[in-house]
């Protein structure tokens, strides 16, 4: 009978079958039965079905934003900003939101391991050890070596571990710990601090009060993306635009491509890379001339015509900007990022700060301040510059480092390959990593003794900049550890005995002691235990009123120094501009939410691209998604091209953040790392001249790689129209 069953009969039979199935399985309560695992011991303050909220501090970057984490039955389920914390006032960036993907990442290191260096992260090659053995290994490493041959390499967060390791190194006579992070390299933090020291006599981070400014000029500072304290500056920016009903602040960005920050600007001025100091000086000269009186020598020495030709800028543009600066009530000029990552970066930073002096905004609302220190803070411990890292690598190579402890940083990925960290590791007898994830550096270590994830940890982070008052953001565990991990502070305290603390909490309280009873603080506690309780409840400790320091600049305008164009290393027809991916940052590639988040300017996801101007691409017969090889003096990488009209034709740009060879399933083997192209060239402050490279490109014939992107391909240069 099956030879000619009609469509209608078939549908009837299928309907009867489906209905029967539905009745049998779907409608009864059995379909809803699930297992529930109640607490073994329920915390007193927990109610079933109601969330518990904890205040803690974000550890995705070093800015120290306060978080409120919603937990349900002991599981962290949502991250939001802490609206009381002065850094972010309730806001978070995407990376903060995605911190849960770190907590629940399936590729976390789940217990202490002994490894063979360089082998893949694999159950067959990892040898589990107990924590007692791990503590013994650390103790032997510290005690059986000459203290001068023990080195600690830490990330930019958390600060409490840096303080503990500093005290420990001091106690055993080891060199002070070194901190490093790719973000500090790409924001040229050392340069900014050096310029501040040269001008104001204090090695502190300047604070740019854009919130109260009515004209912001930014030379390469990506303050809406990753620069210094992006959430705080984004908040300031919003206030600059909309905070005052009588005016809307004007924002001009000088940068060779439209970054996410430049995309928010009223005017984008793509000057030729390397001429930032010249342009700043030329603006200074025009402003000073318009004001009348003496023009300071720094500005007077600039030849306007030379600036126009070398910077590829029109005189009208310069005059227009100078006029705006002259007329603005409180103009502010921000140096940062790619403008300082050049051979003349320090000079650029000083020229730009001098331009602020001309705008007479030091220590005034809408102007330049210095970020305040905490009452118990002596100085700003800035992360190492790339040059200092190069010196450290030389020390490793010479065999003067027998034991290297690594925490919170992934130098094999974050440092330019040309610095030779990988080779230098070979000269270190024992490498002990405290990594949470199996990143490149952890895989090149002899041991991984995993720290808790940031959401499982105690600690604090000093807020380096971004707020008016001094802030100590506090971290506390919002969930109990998911795996057999242990706080690195506890491991070090148990291993060395050189410090008089029983555990991490005792150490933290010793640091809190000087804050108890301070005037004008966010909460008042009579003694240390109450202080600690409030500290957890509030998510930190801070002063209530502004403590910004006015820079004590003497005769800034009278200083004279040569303002010249930057020198570029290598050969090739293109300026090369690596920038930190605004969505991934330096360590976000293992979080699927961040990978899936389209890049704000190109909408590309899950990959690395090369931004190239369509005109240039047309001349070179390159189309979207064509794979090209970028060759610098230091190395070469391959990546598909994204035709980006918002970049100078003589520049190509690449995001930093992908190109991992390890770091878990979501990150490994995806995209390319532009740090491979960066050579060993530093500016006077020791920062890497990362934007000072020239590169050439070679098209790889016949090789295409489709970039996944949110935007339609139709409508962008009418691509693909013929097919639709």
């Amino acid at each position, binding site marked *: 009978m099956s030879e000619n069953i009609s469509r209608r009969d078939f549908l009837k039979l299928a309907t009867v079958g489906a209905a029967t199935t539905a*009745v049998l399985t779907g409608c009864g309560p059995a379909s809803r039965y699930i297992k529930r695992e109640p607490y073994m011991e329920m915390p007193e303050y927990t109610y079933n079905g109601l969330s518990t909220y904890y205040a803690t501090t974000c550890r995705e970057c070093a800015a120290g934003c306060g978080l409120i984490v919603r937990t349900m039955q002991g599981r962290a389920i949502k991250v939001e900003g802490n609206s009381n914390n002065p850094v972010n006032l309730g806001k978070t960036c995407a990376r903060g939101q995605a911190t849960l993907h770190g907590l629940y990442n399936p590729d976390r290191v789940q217990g202490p391991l002994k490894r063979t260096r360089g082998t893949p992260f694999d159950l067959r090659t990892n040898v589990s050890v107990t924590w007692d053995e791990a503590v013994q290994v650390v103790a032997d490493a510290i005690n059986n070596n000459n203290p001068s041959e023990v080195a600690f390499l830490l990330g930019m967060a958390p600060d409490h571990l840096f303080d503990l390791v500093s005290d420990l190194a001091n106690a055993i006579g080891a060199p002070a710990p070194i901190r490093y992070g790719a973000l500090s390299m790409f924001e040229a933090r050392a340069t900014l601090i050096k310029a501040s020291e040269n001008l104001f006599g204090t090695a502190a981070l300047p604070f740019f009060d854009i919130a109260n400014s009515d004209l912001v000029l930014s030379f390469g500072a990506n303050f809406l993306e990753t620069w210094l304290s992006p959430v705080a500056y984004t908040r300031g920016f919003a206030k600059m635009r909309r905070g005052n009903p009588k005016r809307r602040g004007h924002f001009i960005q000088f940068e060779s491509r439209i970054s996410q920050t430049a995309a928010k600007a009223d005017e984008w001025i793509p000057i030729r890379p390397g001429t930032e100091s010249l342009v700043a000086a030329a603006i200074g000269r025009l402003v000073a001339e318009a004001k009348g009186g003496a023009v300071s020598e720094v500005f007077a020495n600039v030849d306007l015509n030379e600036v126009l030709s070398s910077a590829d800028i029109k005189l009208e543009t310069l005059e227009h900007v100078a006029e705006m600066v002259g007329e603005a009530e409180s103009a502010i000029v921000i140096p940062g990022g790619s403008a300082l990552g050049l051979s003349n970066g320090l000079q650029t930073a000083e020229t730009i700060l001098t331009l602020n002096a001309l705008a007479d905004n030091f220590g005034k609302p809408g102007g330049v301040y210095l970020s305040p220190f905490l009452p118990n803070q002596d100085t700003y411990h800035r992360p190492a510059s790339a040059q200092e890292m190069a010196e450290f690598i030389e020390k490793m190579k010479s065999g003067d480092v027998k034991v290297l402890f690594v925490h919170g940083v992934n130098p094999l990925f974050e440092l330019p390959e040309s610095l030779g960290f990988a080779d230098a590791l070979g000269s270190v007898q024992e490498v002990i990593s405290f990594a949470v994830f199996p990143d490149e550096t952890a895989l090149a270590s002899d041991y991984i003794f995993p720290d808790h994830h940031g959401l499982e940890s105690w600690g604090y982070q000093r807020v380096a900049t971004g707020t008016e008052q001094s802030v100590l953001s506090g971290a506390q565990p919002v969930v109990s550890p998911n795996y057999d991990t242990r706080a690195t502070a506890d491991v070090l305290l148990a291993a060395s005995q050189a410090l008089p603390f029983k555990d991490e909490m005792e150490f933290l309280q010793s640091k809190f002691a000087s804050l108890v009873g301070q005037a004008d603080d966010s909460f008042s506690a009579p003694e240390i235990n109450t202080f600690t309780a409030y500290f957890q409840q509030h998510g930190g400790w801070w002063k209530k009123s502004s403590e910004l320091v006015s820079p004590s600049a003497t005769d800034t305008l009278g200083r004279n120094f040569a303002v010249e164009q930057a020198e570029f290393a290598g050969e090739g027809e293109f300026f090369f501009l690596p920038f930190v991916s605004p969505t991934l940052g330096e360590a976000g590639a293992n979080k699927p939410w961040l990978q899936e988040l389209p890049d704000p300017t190109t909408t590309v996801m899950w990959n690395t691209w090369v931004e190239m101007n369509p005109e240039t691409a047309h001349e070179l017969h390159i189309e979207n998604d064509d794979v090209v090889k970028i060759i610098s003096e230091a190395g070469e990488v391959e990546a598909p091209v994204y035709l980006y009209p918002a970049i100078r034709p003589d520049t190509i740009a690449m995001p930093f953040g992908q190109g991992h060879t390890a770091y878990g399933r979501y990150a490994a083997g995806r995209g390319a790392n532009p740090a491979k192209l960066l050579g060993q060239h530093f500016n006077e402050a020791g920062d890497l001249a990362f934007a000072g490279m020239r590169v050439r490109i070679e098209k790889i014939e016949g090789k295409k790689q489709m970039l996944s992107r949110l935007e339609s391909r139709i409508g962008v240069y009418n691509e693909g129209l013929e097919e639709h």
Partner: protein
Amino acid sequence: MIRNFFEWVMGPMGRIAVLITALSLFSLTAFGIYQTQQPPDQPIEFTHKLHVGLGIQCLYCHPGALRGPSPGLPTQTKCWGCHQQMEKTFDPNFPELSEKLVGYIERNEPIPWVPVAQVPDFVHFTHRPHIAAGLNCENCHGDMTQVEIAENPQVLNMGWCLNCHRERAANDPEKLVKLTDCGTCHY
């Protein structure tokens, strides 16, 4: 083809075949429905009858009903608080206690209970207002002194909810709107 089929069905063999098919379909369906109505297996054959019969208040083990949306399942420390003092707990004649309960305690594992009174995810049921309105547990969950292993007391569907809501609204139109508005439970 279909006509041939109907001719065969009208014949004597056909009628018997139809009867057998119908009967087996009916019993299969009945069995299926019966299966879906069975209470699930629990990790421990906990008897409500005994515990409630001993005079333990519902809210002693399910205190969340008074305060929030979910009554909660007791933590094993709550079980252990009483049971560790009882000889019966360690008596091998009661394997549910001496093996299962003691096992969970010794292994420090949560007991994976299966709640039986469930509403679908699109219903935001919360216990507190029901208790606050003066309802007792047994109004919805039945008399637990008669129930051994937890089972679903009745079909928790919308008609059943609304019947009670309408009844309690009596003739107060404002209350009726509040208690029958879609957004009261589906939001």
